[in-house]
């Protein structure tokens, strides 16, 4: 996983799905983050369905592309923030499903993708995640749902070696 992250983090590759696939053919069959709902029926997603979808995990992200190959800079930023905090989350690719893309925008009354949910509650898009990440609020929000951020762990480890 580390090796994969390193490769994905290289700026030249970060947004280049094709190159990544050439260098890491294994990724093409790496199923871990792929959404089970990616091939949902074409009918517009109703509130009831989305109510369930946003609660399939403590953290759920609606994005363009998938975490291995985000297809938008804003979605990529959210993926990188989640990676830094070591968060396990469900990701749904709205580019695979137009009814999901429209449905989620109406559901949250929020005009853009990505959209991040914590404990079924809409938290925000890329700007908000960035600001929460920078202010430390994200660590607190994750703590509330029982997720200890890797950044917090690293901080604590540093403190204990000092003592």
């Amino acid at each position, binding site marked *: 996983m580390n090796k994969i992250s390193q490769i994905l983090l290289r700026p030249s590759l970060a947004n280049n799905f094709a190159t990544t696939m050439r260098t890491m053919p294994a990724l093409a069959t790496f199923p871990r983050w792929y959404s089970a709902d990616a091939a949902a029926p074409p009918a517009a997603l109703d509130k009831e369905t989305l109510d369930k979808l946003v609660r399939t995990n403590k953290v759920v992200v609606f994005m363009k592309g998938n975490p291995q190959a985000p297809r938008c800079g804003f979605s990529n930023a959210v993926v990188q923030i989640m990676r830094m905090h070591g968060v396990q989350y469900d990701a749904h690719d709205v580019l695979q499903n137009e009814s999901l893309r429209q449905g989620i925008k109406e559901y949250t009354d929020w005009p853009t993708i990505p959209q991040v949910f914590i404990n079924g509650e*809409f938290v*925000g898009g890329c*700007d*908000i995640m960035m600001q929460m990440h920078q202010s430390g*609020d994200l660590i607190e929000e994750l703590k509330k749902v029982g997720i200890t951020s890797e950044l917090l762990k690293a901080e604590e480890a540093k403190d204990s070696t000092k003592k």
Partner: protein
Amino acid sequence: MSKYTSKYLEDKLKEKLDATYVHVTDESDGCGGKFSAVIVSKAFEGKALLQKHRLVNTTLAEELKEIHAFSQKSYTPAEWEKVQQQ
């Protein structure tokens, strides 16, 4: 391609949100599809981060249909002061 410019967005935000400071940057190389904005307004006081952003999104609802990438930093005057000191 959208018909909007940084100047237009700045004026609209200033007027609608009674903003004390607005700076909109066109990041689209002139095509008008991507902007980033810093907005300082008393209207944000007492609002959570999400609510601030919602207020701006609502204000620009019509424009955001055409602008496909819009990023914002929205501050109350007090928060803005802190940001500038950093």
